[in-house]
């Protein structure tokens, strides 16, 4: 009873944070389950993947209702992530995983630097509204209502091919290394494609569930998903994600960025160290 309650509470927290940032929450759940509760890493990864799906579906209900996400961007970029994920799964073993950890780790550190620069920018969170051939052709520009600033924000984006390649790499990383790719998805939309942070996070939430569904079937049928852990976790995360999706909408984009930065910094350092054989 106690451990189920603990898992439920952990899920509540991970789901809430994941919904706000557009990440899966595996980085919170895996260490708690393995280090604090002494669970085999196999079951911790199975639990994380369920957490990703629960965060995604739980928050997406709210983000669809409140018109926060960009469905066209999600579907278009989803082609890149899913193809990347399949290629990653097929190529496992052909590449040195330590090299990949270092590569993706350094990319996260570089993104941290970019995000800090954006945070320090005196002009604040400026919204890109220019025109772009691909954006117009794919009808990607959209609008959302920012509750924290109480205004409708019309936005466009640029560099769609760059975002597409980044999404493919994110899918590849998740297939090859078994890591979640929510953070990479947010970076692709926010930093590369210049989408505003809130729709980037909401759209990442939508996408990561689709990407995770494929790997979740693997874990489900090979026995990595334990009912006594994944069951209460799913309930906690679903409730947490619903709450998180509400909180995110009233937060200022700057605040969301301030929460995001230390998390990708931590992930980046952890991945680089892992590449050099040091486990945090």
């Amino acid at each position, binding site marked *: 009873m106690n451990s189920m309650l603990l898992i439920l509470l952990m899920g509540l927290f991970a789901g809430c944070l994941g919904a706000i940032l557009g990440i899966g929450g595996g980085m919170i759940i895996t260490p708690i389950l393995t280090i604090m509760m002494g669970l085999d890493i196999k079951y911790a990864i199975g639990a994380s993947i369920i957490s990703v799906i629960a965060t995604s*579906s739980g928050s997406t209900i709210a983000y669809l209702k409140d018109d926060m996400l960009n469905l066209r961007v999600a579907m278009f970029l989803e082609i890149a992530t899913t193809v990347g994920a399949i290629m990653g799964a097929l190529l496992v073993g052909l590449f040195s995983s330590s090299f990949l950890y270092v590569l993706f780790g350094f990319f996260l550190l570089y993104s941290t630097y970019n995000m800090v620069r954006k945070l320090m920018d005196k002009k604040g969170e400026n919204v890109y509204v220019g025109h772009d051939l691909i954006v117009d052709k794919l009808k990607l520009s959209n609008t959302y209502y920012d509750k924290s600033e109480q205004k409708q924000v019309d936005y466009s984006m640029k560099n769609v091919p760059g975002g597409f390649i980044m999404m493919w790499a994110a899918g590849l990383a998740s297939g090859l290394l078994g890591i979640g790719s929510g953070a990479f998805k947010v970076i692709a939309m926010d930093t590369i494609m210049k989408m505003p942070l809130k729709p980037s996070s909401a759209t990442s939430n939508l996408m990561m569930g689709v990407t995770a569904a494929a790997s979740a079937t693997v874990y489900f049928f090979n026995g990595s998903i334990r009912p006594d852990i994944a069951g209460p976790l799913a309930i906690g995360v679903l409730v947490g994600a619903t709450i998180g999706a509400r909180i995110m909408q009233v937060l200022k984009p700057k605040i969301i960025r301030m929460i995001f930065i230390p998390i990708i910094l931590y992930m980046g350092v952890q991945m680089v160290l892992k590449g050099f054989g040091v486990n945090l």
Partner: protein
Amino acid sequence: MHEEMRKVELIIGKILRIGVVTSEIVILIGIALYFLNGSGYTGSFPTRFGTIISGIAAGKSYAIIMLGIFLLILTPVLRVVVSIYAFYKEKDTMYVIITTAVLIILIIAMLLGYRS
């Protein structure tokens, strides 16, 4: 154009909610039964369709939770399927094609996953 998109989003949202609530209810029933009668298994749990179905028929809590989790895994797939229908209703042919491509890739990935 944005008005059309709103309709698409609202349809997807409603159906997704049905999927999520269903999986939540099934998992909660399983957890409640676990506290009443225990897991129904000794040191294991069902992971194949056959054993899950026979477990549910016998009212075993772990089998019911596994069903709920499987339903949850299907919710993103449901979202893609409904999106195709919603784009079709809005006569957005380009996105019907894009979303169908996503569904096909996803199904291939899931089948690869089931085999490995």
